[in-house]
């Protein structure tokens, strides 16, 4: 919970020395409360004050990064319970499990799937982010071997080293030095040894318990052992438990500033049925899991989960936008119709979807209107005759067309006269008001 300016003021030297650049300690405290100043500006502040303010200003869910280099993934830093309040910050990490009881061939196959998982959607590259290697064999040599296979074949992919056996953990960490893996497996019986390994190898530590009370005691103990970077698992496995524990953890962290649970959550979604597993992962993405470990990563499942994560982690205040350009739908010829709309991603998706449904090949000119829908963009003066005319002219599309004819959305029929003036030689046609009228409209024209 953030401190108020007055609460901060009480902790300052109250000397009004102005060394921080502010006229009084109170003024400085107010700036600190608004996060417009840094405590470091005060040369006389006590260590105790630094500690208290440092804790109070820390984000309610601690940021943790696993992996190194360009594929490293960051988790935590969440500030709200509901996405309409504020953007969810760091998207859920998807990991796939590799058991060290699998043959080398099977392991290689999964790594290939991970490396091949990248999909581009609305300009974002989405993929399976990490690999979770599980020490099912209970053999530390085999575990180290499996880690080495993954490291060799997938350099750069963040790792989760999953074992409760400290010898196996150390063998794996030795192989993965400098890769900043997550060591998952501190529990009530091995906490000291695991904490010591996490410290020695400088990695984040996953902590597992079978309920929120024991989890709390355990994270406090581990923090006391000098480990700051923690990822938590309450032991929730059924959908009902995942929703309950994840909700209570997020609430405790954000509404109560309860530090012992202010860490990213790891969820194991394993199910024999791949579809049910995808639905458990869906719950995790919507409700506060920071890492979701899957047992299989079929392409169809990845596409659905990546898209979901993108949807849930979209900034609710900034509309999703698509790139301004002329999109070709089907295989348009010189005689195919040309339509214009705005670059709000929903508008684009719905309009292009309906054009596809019509089975009529066409060109869709999508104009940058800062992500506003047609009516809103028109009302805001971003979708005007002059701007549309400029966009169409600069696109050079007229060279591709036999007839200079532009179809505009029915909602902006009012623009047709002005557009004909601004686009000499063009015929402006008013299309349907709603996208769902497009199939009938296009089919009638084509007939």
């Amino acid at each position, binding site marked *: 919970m953030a401190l108020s300016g007055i609460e901060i003021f009480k902790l300052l030297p109250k000397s009004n020395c102005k060394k921080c650049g502010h006229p009084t300690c109170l003024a400085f405290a107010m700036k600190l409360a608004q996060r417009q100043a840094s405590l470091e500006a005060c040369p006389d502040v006590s260590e105790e004050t630094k500690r208290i303010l440092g804790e109070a200003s820390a984000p309610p869910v601690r940021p943790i990064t696993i992996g190194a280099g360009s594929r490293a993934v960051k988790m935590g830093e969440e500030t709200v319970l509901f996405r309409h309040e504020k953007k969810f910050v760091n998207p859920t990490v998807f990991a796939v499990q590799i058991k060290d009881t699998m043959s080398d061939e099977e392991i290689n196959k999964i790594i290939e799937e991970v490396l091949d998982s990248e999909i581009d959607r609305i300009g974002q590259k989405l993929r399976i982010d990490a690999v979770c290697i599980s020490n099912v064999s209970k053999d530390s040599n085999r575990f180290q071997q499996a880690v080495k296979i993954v490291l060799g074949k997938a350099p750069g992919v963040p790792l989760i080293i999953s074992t409760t056996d400290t010898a196996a953990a150390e063998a794996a960490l030795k192989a993965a030095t400098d890769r900043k893996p997550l060591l998952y497996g501190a529990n009530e019986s091995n906490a000291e040894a695991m904490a010591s390994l996490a410290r020695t190898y400088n990695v984040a530590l996953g902590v597992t318990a079978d309920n929120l009370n024991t989890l709390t005691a355990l994270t406090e103990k581990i923090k006391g052992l000098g480990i700051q970077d923690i990822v938590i698992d309450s032991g929730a496995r059924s959908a009902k438990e995942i929703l309950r524990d994840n909700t209570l953890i997020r609430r405790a962290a954000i509404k109560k500033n*309860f*530090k012992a649970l202010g860490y990213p959550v790891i969820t194991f979604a394993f199910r024999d049925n791949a*579809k049910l597993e*995808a*639905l458990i992962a*869906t719950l995790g993405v*919507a409700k506060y899991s920071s890492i979701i470990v899957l047992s299989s990563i*079929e392409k169809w499942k990845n596409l659905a989960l990546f898209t979901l994560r993108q949807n849930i982690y979209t900034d609710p205040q900034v509309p999703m936008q698509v790139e301004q350009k002329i999109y070709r739908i089907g295989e348009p010829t010189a005689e195919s119709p040309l339509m214009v709309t705005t670059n709000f991603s929903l508008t684009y*998706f719905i309009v292009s*979807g309906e054009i596809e449904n019509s089975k009529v090949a066409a060109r869709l000119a999508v104009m940058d209107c800062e992500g506003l829908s047609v009516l809103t963009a028109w009302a805001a003066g971003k979708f005007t005759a002059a701007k549309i005319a400029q966009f169409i002219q600069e696109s050079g599309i007229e060279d591709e067309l036999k007839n200079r004819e532009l179809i505009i959305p029915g909602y902006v029929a009012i623009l047709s006269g002005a557009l004909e003036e601004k686009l000499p030689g063009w015929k402006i046609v008013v299309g349907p008001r709603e996208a769902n009228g497009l199939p009938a409209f296009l089919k009638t024209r084509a007939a």
Partner: protein
Amino acid sequence: MAFTEPKETYTGKVFQVSAGTDNGIVFGGENVLPFHSFEGSVPNRPVIAYEIQDVPPHDWPETVKAEYSGASNNAAAWAKYCQDKFKAKALTLRLIGTHPDGEDRTTEEAAKTVREVLSAINIPLIILGSNHAEKDSAVLVAAAEAAKDSNCVIGKAQEKNYKTIAAAAMANNHKLIAMSELDINLSKQLNILITQMGFDKERLITDPMCSALGYGLEYTYSVMERIRLAALTQNDAVMQPPMVGDVGMYVWKVKETQALEKDIPQWGILKDRGIIWEAVTAVCMLVAGSEILIMRHPEAIKAVEQFIDEMI
């Protein structure tokens, strides 16, 4: 520092609504956020209604059509097939054939289909128009009369046509779906207008408009969460009807449920992709606040039922 579970108690509660007669369904009634049985009462399981329509599903993708081949040429046969083969707990009849741009079926034909479907099944029926505001206000009045006293759910009443549809639902003892487009204020306003006609708010179902995964899902998701929070934390009675997620119609027209694997290999197997697209969309609606879903693919429905089993 000991951990105290930060549980919430809410002042409001979602209305409990029933549909059907002997084999009826009951949904809503919870006084907490969706599936939060750890801090309150969640008396009823969400219901999934299989979607059928008055004309053969020519525009549905093969993946879905194949599940109903042989039955879907006739609405009554199709309805019975869902009830007998898939053990559907409820059914949705969409009178899409009445749309003026489609077959433009008459109100009499629509009423006849409703009667035939009702006599073929003993599970509750949701009756939807073609989403043509003007035509729906005639079609749904005829449908509501044809289904008199069967305790159906009639929809969708929208800003442009709610008066006639709400009056018909009221006169014939049905429940009513009120739909507005992805805006909590519009949704609230429509519910107020309908209740001002004398329609009992405890017989209403709110449809904030569904959207498919990847195609605006997050808008529906957040509008539903906000409506549910208003119902519970502010005890806003106008926002307390249960919510419907009309999932199938939005899902089975997007590219991801249609594109062939050979055209986009990176997207994986088409059949599984379509099913998961519908199921993931449905689960998001449930988690955001829907108590009743309208869906198309039997395997997607089965997966979501398995998910619900785990949640309750």
